[in-house]
């Protein structure tokens, strides 16, 4: 371990100070999470589009799947239903959500409904002007995909120049006054403590409030078990700067506990963006129906690894 790395590692557990507006956004979110009605997920992921401007090797959207865009009336209806049900947070998801034409309007609608708004992006198109426009529309937070703390490794997965663009996006988002997180797919090779620490050091160095790590779940099943990642993470990051969808000692994951819900561009509802099985169609049934059906049904099966 180099001296520089040691210096970075000593900052485990610390988080960058937030500006006043971000602090208030977080306080409102925390207050709403603390008062979350039973059975209501804390986060609704909205897959706005299946289009993406990158071709990440691990991503299910990299193939030749037909392009799908969430119809704007469906999006507006989902946002209103989520707010009415007491869901505190919505994540604009993809594909790449910055390619969705109605993104700014959707952000404005969601923020106006009192939802905490997040954007999950690869960062390629998140210029300073775009970040500022989204912040003005009411975006609170940007999660930017960085799959490794090493540029070469990230670029090998997501394409040449993608690491530099993600880094620029982190800076743009911060300068626009957005709360920033690093979002990362973790593969079997990335489970080693030095790899995790390098990634977290990168996130801290660039002012991210935290890192959200997703165990890689290939479409055919297998990949990194979520529980395994959580256990490794606890050892590599005892300060809790990073989180994942599972935690040691708690059965299942956020999806099986009913804490998250995902709606794909075509209206298909799943227990999380990576779940294999569909729960139904939001085009045919109100969101509240999916919430009530999921109450009290925890499972130890991970829906990203099981077609059930």
């Amino acid at each position, binding site marked *: 371990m180099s001296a520089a790395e040691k210096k970075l590692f000593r900052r485990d557990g610390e988080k960058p100070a937030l500006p006043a507006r971000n*602090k*208030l956004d977080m*306080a409102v979110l*925390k*207050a709403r999470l*603390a*008062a979350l009605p039973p059975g209501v997920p804390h986060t609704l992921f909205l897959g706005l589009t299946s289009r993406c401007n990158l071709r990440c090797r691990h991503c299910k959207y990299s193939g030749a799947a037909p392009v799908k865009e969430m119809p704007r009336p469906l999006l507006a209806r989902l946002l209103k239903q989520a707010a009415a049900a007491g869901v505190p947070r919505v994540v604009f998801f993809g594909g790449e959500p910055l390619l969705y034409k109605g993104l700014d309007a959707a952000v404005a609608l969601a923020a106006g409904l009192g939802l905490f708004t997040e954007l999950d992006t690869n960062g390629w198109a998140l210029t300073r002007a775009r970040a500022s426009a989204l912040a003005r529309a009411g975006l609170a937070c940007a999660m930017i995909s960085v799959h490794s703390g090493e540029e070469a490794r990230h670029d090998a997965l997501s394409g040449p120049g993608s690491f530099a663009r993600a880094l620029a996006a982190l800076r743009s988002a911060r300068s626009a006054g957005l709360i920033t997180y690093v979002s990362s797919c973790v593969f079997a090779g990335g489970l080693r403590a030095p790899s995790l620490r390098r990634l977290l050091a990168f996130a801290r160095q660039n002012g991210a409030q935290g890192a959200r790590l997703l165990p890689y779940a290939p479409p055919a099943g297998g990949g990194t078990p979520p529980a395994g990642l959580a256990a490794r993470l606890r050892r590599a990051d005892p300060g809790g700067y990073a989180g994942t969808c599972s935690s040691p000692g708690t059965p299942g994951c956020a999806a099986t506990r009913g804490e998250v819900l995902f709606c794909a561009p075509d209206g298909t509802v799943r227990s999380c963006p990576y779940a294999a099985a569909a729960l139904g169609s939001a085009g045919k049934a109100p969101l509240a129906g999916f919430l009530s059906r999921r109450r009290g049904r925890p499972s130890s099966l991970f829906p990203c690894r099981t077609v059930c």
Partner: protein
Amino acid sequence: MPADKKNPFIREAITWRKTGDEAVILNLETSEYYSANEAGTFVWELFSAGKKKEKIAAALAEEYGIPPAQAEKDTSDFLKELAKLKIIAPEAVK
């Protein structure tokens, strides 16, 4: 900071936002935050707009259909709690 923060008795480090029926009040210095219920939010909104304690109590009595004496006590208790939490200056309660 809300544009309607007109009451000088609210401490400088305090900011807040209404979400649904609730107000979330945040102390920027300590990062402590408080969530007021519907009635508390009603009082807080009037207080932050610069209304005096007596006017707030009268409005509370009318809004919730409670006796004036009860509304005065509820308002006073709520403001005392805010002063105790260093959200507003103690002079505001007098």
